[in-house]
């Protein structure tokens, strides 16, 4: 099933480590600004907008 993982910048190294220990070293994911919990709606919308293209690529594959 196509999927798109999204990590905040602060958790990139953790995501890469988990991907490595689970045997999927180059598992791709989108990256957004940290943190999420204190972001207001406008800030979240901005993050989502910036991540949308990456998520589309992850879901549809490199050729779209």
């Amino acid at each position, binding site marked *: 099933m196509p999927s798109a993982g999204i990590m905040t910048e602060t958790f990139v*190294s*953790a995501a890469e*480590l*988990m991907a490595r*220990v*689970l045997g999927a070293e180059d598992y791709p994911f989108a990256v957004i600004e940290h943190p999420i919990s204190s972001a207001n709606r406008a800030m979240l919308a901005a993050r989502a907008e910036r991540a949308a293209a990456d998520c589309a690529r992850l879901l549809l594959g490199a050729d779209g």
Partner: protein
Amino acid sequence: MQLASTRHDVADMMAAQEFYHSRGWTDGLPVVPPTEDAVEACLEWAGLVPDHLVGVEPVRARAVTAEKLAINAVMAGCLPMHFPVVVTAFTAMLQEPFLLHGATASTGGCAVLVVVNGPITQDIGMDATFNALASSDRASTAIGRSLRLSLINIMDVRPGAIDRSVLGHPGKISYCLAEDEAGSEWLPLAEERGMPVGASCVTVMAAGAPRQLMNEWTTVPEEILDTFASEIRANMRHYSIWPGNYAIIVPPQLRAHFHAAGWSKADVRAYVFEKARILRSEWADCGKGAVVRDRGGSEYAALSAPEDLLVIAAGGPAGGFGAVIPPWLGPKSRAVTVAIGACVDCEIS
């Protein structure tokens, strides 16, 4: 006995320390070099072969063998007679309800609280009285430390690697105690949690730092427990509103008042269950108004059921102190109790 782990040769004790530190194999303190003899002695004492599968961490499919635990137990300073407790604690940590990966990777920074019950506490010299929560005795300190070293070296739970704790707390070095069964009229924790009478057992809980309290100015059980419940409510206000396993440590001076009044642990749990509640609106009093929204009137209980409170008799003889130990993150991780010597298929609670 055939050990599978790689051997490393070093010149002397100091070289061994630098060797281990340079590879990130310690918690920052010196370690006891895990020689073959020492590791085998632990395994022999517990009656385990080196490749005995203690369990598998499900998120990362990481197998944990008795040999690897024994190596880390020796490093932590454990004697062979401590090793059955180490194996049982890790067996409990690997049970699904404990959620080991989440508890050890979380930014929340909890530690594994270990409570030991039964005759083994006397056999191995655990002291449930003075300084019960830190460095009370050799066995408690070494057993607790062995779990942390095992997490570091078997599960990669190093700060900044799998361990993403923002702060952590001192219990991450070692967080292990025995219950003072000899000094208490209460049922032991493990027995209350369904373990056989007289069995030696280990309970593990993903736990925050202890929050110490004091109330020396009453003998009334309800008033004493109001102080405990108030501390739990403070944790709900300042940290997390979600219900989970809370532990309370009740030393002798306060226990005497409960015993005199005929209060059992079940009575204590029932009272705290009713009292440890806050309204969501209280979050607005401590800077968290943004998440109150239109749900200010909603009531939140610290405990989903009275049984979620672990009541532990421990501590030195003088002083009306006590402690509340909060859960890592609400109900995400559940306390698990396992009997020492029980197979992994045995019933747990």
